[in-house]
């Protein structure tokens, strides 16, 4: 009670603050929190409930603590002083704490008031802003409406623009069309201008031409008038001249008639002369007949000669045929020769092959010989070894015999040894037998070697013979080729001669033709002479000259006939000689062909022999190879 009373005494003046009291219950919790935070001593906890309880229980709990404190007054007075001090200190601390708390609260309140004021200001400002915004929104709405109106107006304007653009495009198109048409019209205008100009020029030219024509026409007319006048004058002159000429010609006619009469007299004289010449002509005709008969005889002779020529031609043809046949035969012979040469070449090739085979065989034989020699050496070595062994065995035998003589006591052993020695002796005998066999084989091999060498020599000889034969055949072939060439040259010569003969024949024919032409010419001349004699009766000298000419012509013809006959004879002789020569040559060729055939047969025989030899050699080689193989096996 006393404790609390002073508490009550001290506390209530502080509780007078209405503001504080209004807030105290809240702050009491905070102070309690603070005090709990600040107070660390457990004593304060006791104080706290007292502080807590004081304002709350200040009026209610007076009765209960007072009774308790009355009991404890005497005991607690001493403690109360100390506790009072402590409480005073605690109170100061708490008062200070409360003051701090108050200050903080006041500051917080002030801050909050400021914040409130600020918020109010902000609110007012926001309200104003809102109002302004609303106003602005109204204005914006108005502006948007205006904008929409303007947009509509713009759309309309754009449409108008598009329409105007369309119109512009159309205008452009129309302008382009117009320009095109204007250019066309300009071209046409220019063309029309040119045409007008040309027309004007043409018209002017035409005018000029017509004027010129008119002028020319006048000039020509005047010229024609002058010419006509002149020609009229000329005509008059010609008429006069013609009349004069007519008179002159009449006079000439009179003169000519007188001359004609005189000529008639002359003609009568000539007629008498003609009769005389006719008589002479008859004589000449007879002479002509004789000449004709001679001509006929000459013609007959010519026919005979022609026949002879034809015969010669036939003979020539025959000879040509024979030549052709010979040529064909020669070609066949040449082909045969070529074949033979080919066969010979084949044979040569075969010989070469055989040579190669023989060379290979030689090599094989040589290898075999070398092998055999090596075998011989080996066998000789073996023989030597065996001889050495035999010598050693003999020595051993001698030693053993000595031992036997020395070792008379060990008969069983010696007999055994003897038995052994006998066995060894048997072996030695076997070895000796082998030696003999080997010696026999060696002798056989040596004999075979000799035989082989002989065979090789024979083969070599045969090869030499074959080479010689091949060379001879080659030479013969060359000779035959030369003969063929000579024959070909002869053929060519004979062909040339035949050509020459044909040329001569042609010449003869030409000469005959010439003679015939001359004869025909002479016949025509004779006809002409007859006609001339029959027609004219003037001069007998011409007939005589003609008779002489005919006689000379006949003589010439006879001479030509004789010459032709001689030429024909010569040519026939030449032809005969040539035919004989050709025949001789043909015979020679036939003989050559026969000889060639014989030689070919001989060569074939030789080739067959050679083939047989080759076959034999092959067989021998095979046998030898078999022997060698057997030896190798042994």
């Amino acid at each position: 009670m006393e404790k609390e009373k002073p508490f009550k005494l001290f506390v209530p003046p502080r509780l007078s603050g209405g503001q504080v009291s209004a807030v105290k219950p809240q702050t009491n919790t905070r102070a309690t929190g603070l005090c709990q935070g600040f107070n660390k001593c457990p004593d304060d906890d006791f104080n706290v409930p007292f502080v807590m309880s004081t304002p709350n229980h200040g009026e209610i709990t007076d009765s209960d603590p007072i009774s308790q404190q009355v009991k404890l007054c005497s005991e607690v007075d001493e403690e109360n002083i100390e506790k009072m001090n402590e409480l005073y200190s605690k109170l100061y601390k708490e008062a200070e704490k409360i003051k701090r708390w108050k200050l903080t609260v006041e500051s917080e309140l002030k801050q909050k008031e400021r914040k409130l004021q600020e918020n109010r200001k902000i609110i007012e400002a926001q309200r104003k802003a809102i109002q302004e915004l609303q106003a602005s929104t109204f204005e914006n709405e108005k502006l948007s409406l205006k904008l929409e109106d303007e947009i509509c107006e713009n759309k309309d304007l754009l449409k108008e623009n598009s329409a105007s653009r369309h119109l512009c495009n159309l205008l452009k198109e129309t302008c382009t069309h117009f320009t095109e048409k204007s250019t066309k019209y300009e071209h046409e205008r220019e063309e029309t201008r040119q045409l007008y100009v040309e027309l004007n020029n043409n018209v002017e030219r035409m005018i000029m031409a017509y004027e010129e024509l008119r002028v020319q026409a006048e000039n020509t007319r005047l010229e024609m008038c002058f010419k006509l006048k002149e020609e009229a004058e000329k005509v008059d002159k010609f008429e006069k001249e013609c009349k004069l000429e007519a008179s002159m010609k009449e006079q000439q006619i009179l003169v000519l008639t007188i001359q004609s009469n005189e000529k008639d007299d002359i003609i009568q004289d000539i007629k008498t002369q003609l009769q005389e010449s006719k008589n002479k002509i008859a004589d000449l005709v007879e002479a002509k007949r004789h000449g004709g008969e001679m001509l006929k005889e000459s013609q007959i002779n010519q026919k005979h000669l022609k026949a002879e020529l034809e015969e010669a031609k036939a003979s020539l043809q025959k000879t040509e045929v024979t030549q052709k046949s010979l040529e064909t035969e020669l070609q066949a012979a040449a082909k045969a020769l070529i074949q033979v040469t080919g066969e010979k070449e084949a044979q040569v090739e075969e010989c070469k092959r055989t040579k190669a085979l023989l060379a290979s065989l030689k090599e094989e034989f040589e290898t075999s010989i070398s092998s055999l020699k090596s075998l011989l050496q080996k066998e000789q070595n073996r023989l030597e070894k065996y001889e050495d062994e035999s010598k050693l065995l003999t020595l051993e035998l001698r030693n053993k015999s000595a031992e036997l003589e020395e070792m008379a006591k060990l008969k069983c052993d010696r007999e055994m040894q003897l038995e052994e020695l006998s066995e060894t002796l048997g072996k030695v005998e076997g070895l000796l037998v082998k030696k003999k066999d080997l010696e026999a084989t060696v002798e056989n091999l040596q004999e075979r070697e000799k035989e082989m060498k002989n065979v090789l020599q024979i083969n070599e000889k045969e090869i030499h013979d074959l080479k010689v034969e091949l060379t001879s055949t080659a030479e013969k072939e060359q000779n035959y080729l030369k003969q063929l060439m000579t024959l070909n040259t002869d053929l060519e010569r004979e062909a040339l001669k035949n050509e020459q003969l044909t040329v001569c024949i042609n010449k003869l024919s030409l000469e005959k033709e010439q003679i015939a032409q001359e004869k025909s010419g002479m016949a025509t001349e004779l006809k002409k002479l007859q006609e001339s004699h029959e027609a004219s009766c003037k001069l007998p000298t011409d007939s005589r000259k003609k008779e002489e000419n005919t006689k000379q012509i006949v003589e010439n013809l006879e001479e030509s006939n004789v010459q032709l006959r001689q030429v024909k004879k010569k040519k026939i002789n030449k032809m005969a000689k040539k035919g004989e020569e050709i025949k001789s040559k043909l015979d020679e060729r036939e003989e050559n062909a026969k000889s060639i055939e014989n030689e070919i047969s001989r060569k074939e025989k030789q080739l067959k022999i050679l083939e047989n030899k080759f076959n034999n050699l092959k067989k021998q080689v095979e046998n030898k190879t078999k022997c060698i193989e057997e030896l190798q096996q042994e």
Partner: protein
Amino acid sequence: MAESEPQEGSYDDMVKMVEDLNRDLEKLLEEMEKLTVQATWMAYDMVVIRTNPDLANSMRRLEDAFLSCKEEMEKKWQEMLSE
């Protein structure tokens, strides 16, 4: 000259479009003037060509010359025949 009309287009596009339109219209006006000038020139030329009196004169000359030639030719042959 774009034909699209976006409402969101800026004012500059519209200005450009209008300016382009004006330019094109001016060009077209110039071309039209040129064409009209050419047309009038053409008409003048056509009139001049049509009303050219030289052709008629030249044709008359031709006729005169032809007739004179004919007369002369006829005269000549007549004279020839007479002679």
